[in-house]
């Protein structure tokens, strides 16, 4: 090893050692539980149990009605995905109309490629995954808004100001979870609000109330006695696309590696 290589390698090692462990940590719900200096006593978080979901789509229907999303359009604030993994390791995903009418057939809806029949004996596992806005602690969609139309409330919900939104759709592109869409009537960015009008009145979101199987739950991360908080703090949960650093606040029970 010559002197140049020695110096190079030493600098790399020192730089590597200098990175604090906390910088490598992706998500830690305990940090959100600790009260922040802004004094907010509420931080909303969501818990989805993918084992319990049966793909009935009542949540999607209720959400569309509650939040006045035109029933016939394909946009929806929440949707349910079906994952079918075959024994050969191929994964099929579909969500016809966002599962507004539930899943009533075994055929997989591949959009323009038509319906895919899968032999029952080839199915290794098949399950449903409800999706909605993750109300990230570091929302990428908010950072990119050029006009201050989208923002995060003190209790952690990301909202869109329809009067200020210019409809540039930059936020729709920025969201790694594709939860934002374009409202066909208001011509503004549209997204899940955790039913802000309900949770701030002490109610649960429309999707939580509509779910017969308890697959969806909402809770306050700053309340240590909240059953949802207790489950999240147990650590036996997962989040979507953790590597993006957005710190999503929708936690999943029974997440599978095929789910993206």
């Amino acid at each position, binding site marked *: 090893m010559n002197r140049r290589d020695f110096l190079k390698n030493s600098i790399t090692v020192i730089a590597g050692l200098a990175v604090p462990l906390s910088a490598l940590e992706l998500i830690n719900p305990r940090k959100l539980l600790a009260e922040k200096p*802004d004094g*907010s006593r509420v931080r909303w978080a969501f818990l989805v149990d*993918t*084992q*319990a*979901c*049966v*793909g*009935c*789509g*009542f949540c999607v*229907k*209720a959400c569309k*009605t*509650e*939040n*006045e999303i035109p029933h016939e359009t394909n946009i929806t604030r929440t949707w349910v995905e*079906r994952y*079918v993994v075959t024994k050969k390791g191929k994964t099929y995903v579909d969500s016809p109309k966002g599962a507004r*009418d*539930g*899943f*009533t*057939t*075994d055929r997989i809806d591949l959009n323009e490629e038509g319906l895919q029949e*899968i032999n*029952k004996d080839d*199915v290794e*596992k*098949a*399950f*449903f995954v409800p999706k909605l806005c993750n109300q990230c602690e570091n*929302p990428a969609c*908010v*950072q990119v808004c050029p006009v*201050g*139309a*989208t*923002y*995060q*409330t*003190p209790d952690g919900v990301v*909202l869109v*100001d329809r*009067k*200020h939104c210019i409809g540039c759709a930059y936020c729709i592109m920025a969201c790694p979870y594709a939860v934002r869409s374009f409202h066909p009537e208001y011509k503004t960015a549209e997204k899940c*609000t955790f039913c*802000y*009008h309900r949770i*701030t*009145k002490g*109610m*649960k979101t*429309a999707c939580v*109330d*509509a779910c*017969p*199987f*308890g*697959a969806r739950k909402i809770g306050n991360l700053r309340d240590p006695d909240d059953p949802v908080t207790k489950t999240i703090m147990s650590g036996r949960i997962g989040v979507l696309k953790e590597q993006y650093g957005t710190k999503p606040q929708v936690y999943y029970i029974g997440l599978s590696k095929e789910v993206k």
Partner: protein
Amino acid sequence: MGSHVWRPLYIAVALIVLVLIARTFLVPEDFGVHERGYMYGMHRKGNENEWKAVTVKYRTASYCKECHADKVESLSRTPHGIINCENCHGPALNHPDDPPTLTIDRSRALCLRCHAALTTPTSGRANIVGINPDTHNPGAECSLCHDPHNPISRSHSDEQARLSQK
């Protein structure tokens, strides 16, 4: 320096002043950096209340119970007791004032949301009684034979009737 240097500068200054004056009128007073800081909290504060003011449509079973306590109670003792009333009866809004009657969804499609048999071995769906919609009395309304408020007893008695005929 000649005035030809200063003149464009005056115009530029005038434009800046004009923009600043226009801004005081056009930007709402409550627009600014709020709790979540510059990166996440710059917004019009009043918009939070606009979102809070959205009408609640689904009032949940606790609201239905105020008048229909008997129905809510009897339903809660059946397997369908986990389903919120409004999933089939529609959002209550301000019922009975507005709307005076609710539209009940009796369609086959509603029942099939849960009771169409699917190959989903690793989900809760596998534990629900399912039928093949193409072969199980196609076109018939489910409530002709099944009582949605008491799914067990009716199907059970049907089963017994069918057995006694044999």
